[in-house]
């Protein structure tokens, strides 16, 4: 498929509140190529989640254009072009793990469900947990089920909204490693929202630094870290230089001020 997977031009989202208009996104220009791992990083209110939700057609822009796979976000959503992973696992407590992973397959009427479910549970290293209920799993495991569910119908695009934010750092490190391996194996395009600088630098091939009031892109950084990296890379000079560049961008966007 030619052309970028996501293409946004002069994208803006303004909404009225009782006090004054809020510019959640202001003239955002962005291109995401096939196979990229793009992180949106910035403080609260910089528009990173809003931008992700506009891509997913969970919210609509007020001006500018955006295409996903060459279509409008709505068409892409109805064509089931992406899988979405939320901040919380959002698993249905009345379904077992395998029935949760199978939920999109039921809705979309896709066949070979059992194979897809087994394959994706194995991808997230949860083989053997099919019959468990969500509350029997830890937070990290629940989030992995949520990722398996997003991949179940094999979308080319994966949208992730701070998926590891609620987990402790040790679990988070492990999941970062696993996500990177998964990306390497499946070659999906991933758009990942985070407010952790090390996480963004570790995972991404491209980092989009955003800042608030109005929500806009300050810097786009191509990392060129080796594909098969491990967590140790976080102490190398290249890594620290990238992290520094991200931090500078955040400061320029007044992200560290009140």
């Amino acid at each position: 498929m030619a052309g970028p997977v996501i293409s946004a031009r002069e994208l803006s989202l303004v909404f009225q509140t009782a006090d004054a208009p809020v510019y959640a996104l202001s003239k955002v220009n962005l291109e995401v190529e096939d196979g990229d791992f793009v992180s949106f990083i910035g403080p609260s209110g910089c528009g990173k989640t809003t931008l992700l939700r506009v891509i997913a057609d969970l919210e609509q822009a007020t001006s500018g254009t955006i295409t996903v796979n060459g279509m409008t976000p709505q068409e892409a959503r109805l064509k089931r072009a992406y899988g979405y992973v939320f901040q919380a696992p959002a698993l249905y407590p009345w379904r077992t793990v395998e029935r949760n992973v199978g939920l999109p397959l039921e809705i979309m009427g896709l066949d070979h469900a059992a194979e897809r479910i087994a394959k994706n549970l194995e991808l997230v290293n949860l083989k053997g947990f099919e019959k468990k209920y969500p509350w029997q799993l830890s937070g990290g495991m629940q989030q992995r089920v949520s990722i398996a569910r997003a991949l179940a119908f094999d979308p080319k695009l994966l949208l992730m909204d701070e998926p590891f934010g609620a987990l402790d750092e040790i679990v988070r490190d492990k999941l970062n490693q696993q996500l990177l391996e998964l990306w390497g194996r499946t070659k999906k395009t991933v758009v990942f929202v985070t407010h952790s600088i090390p996480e963004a630098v570790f995972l991404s091939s491209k980092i989009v630094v955003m800042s608030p009031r109005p929500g806009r892109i300050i810097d786009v950084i191509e990392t060129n870290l080796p594909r098969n990296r491990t967590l140790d890379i976080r102490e190398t000079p290249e890594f620290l230089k990238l992290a520094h560049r991200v931090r500078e961008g955040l400061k320029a966007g007044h992200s560290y001020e009140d």
Partner: protein
Amino acid sequence: MSAAPAIAATPVPREKGNAFPVTVVCLGILLAWYLAAIPMNWVITGPKIEAAGGGLSNILAFSWNDARPVIPAPHQIAQELWKSVFTFAPWMPKSLIYHGWITLSSTLLGFVLGSLLGVVLAIAIVHVTFLAKSLMPWIIASQTIPILAIAPMVIVVLGSIGFTGLVPKSLISMYLCFFPVTIGMVKGLTSPETTQLDLMRTYHASTSQVLWKLRFPSSVPFLFTSLKVAVAIALTGAIVGELPTGAIAGIGARLLQGSYYGQTVQIWAALFMGSFLAAALVWLVGVAERFTLKRMGVKP
């Protein structure tokens, strides 16, 4: 780049009030009522309409103005209400105010006694495990029993030992409304979080200090919710209490009389009076609730 660009913004819709939809639904109900009255009253009005020669104006006139209809038209009920409330002196047996007051007085007495009993019982249950374990299962089980059905018996039994009138009816109301108050208060008194209770322990607070400074304030929302339920059920209890012995005074009595003598409009008027009383009582509890919560500094 930071200055505000001139972009048309999507307005966020403000929270709409409910007044308009409620009015529309009420008007719809009124319309449906008037229309339904025509076929429903036909069994009575049919012959009269034929005798008068038929025609639309006759149909409407007879369907909506019969003295003993199957279903009275809303304006007939309004007229009867007006007559019963404003044309008779309030102490006369023909006045709905007289009957309303009879029912209301036993309701209020039962409500006050029942609520006090409920609060006291709840405090006892929360502090004495023995009471909690022996009483609560029975209280919850009793919710599954149609208690209202024993109202007649209470009236008659107390009547035969000489208690008539206000007291037995208010006893029924009291019995009916202490259940929701007890259960609501137990829930409320046990609602403080563990962290809040732990804080009291670090202060070495006594049980009664914890009760008055923490548990009771936390239970106020629960109390008012159950008071609203209790006041409504106390009124129902008072009305049902008037049924079995063929009482001659009170809303329930008017319902019974209307039922015996086929006075449909009288039944509806009494029903509206009872409903108005219930709504007014619940509204009053709501006013007290808003006032109290405001004094306590709760976010409106």
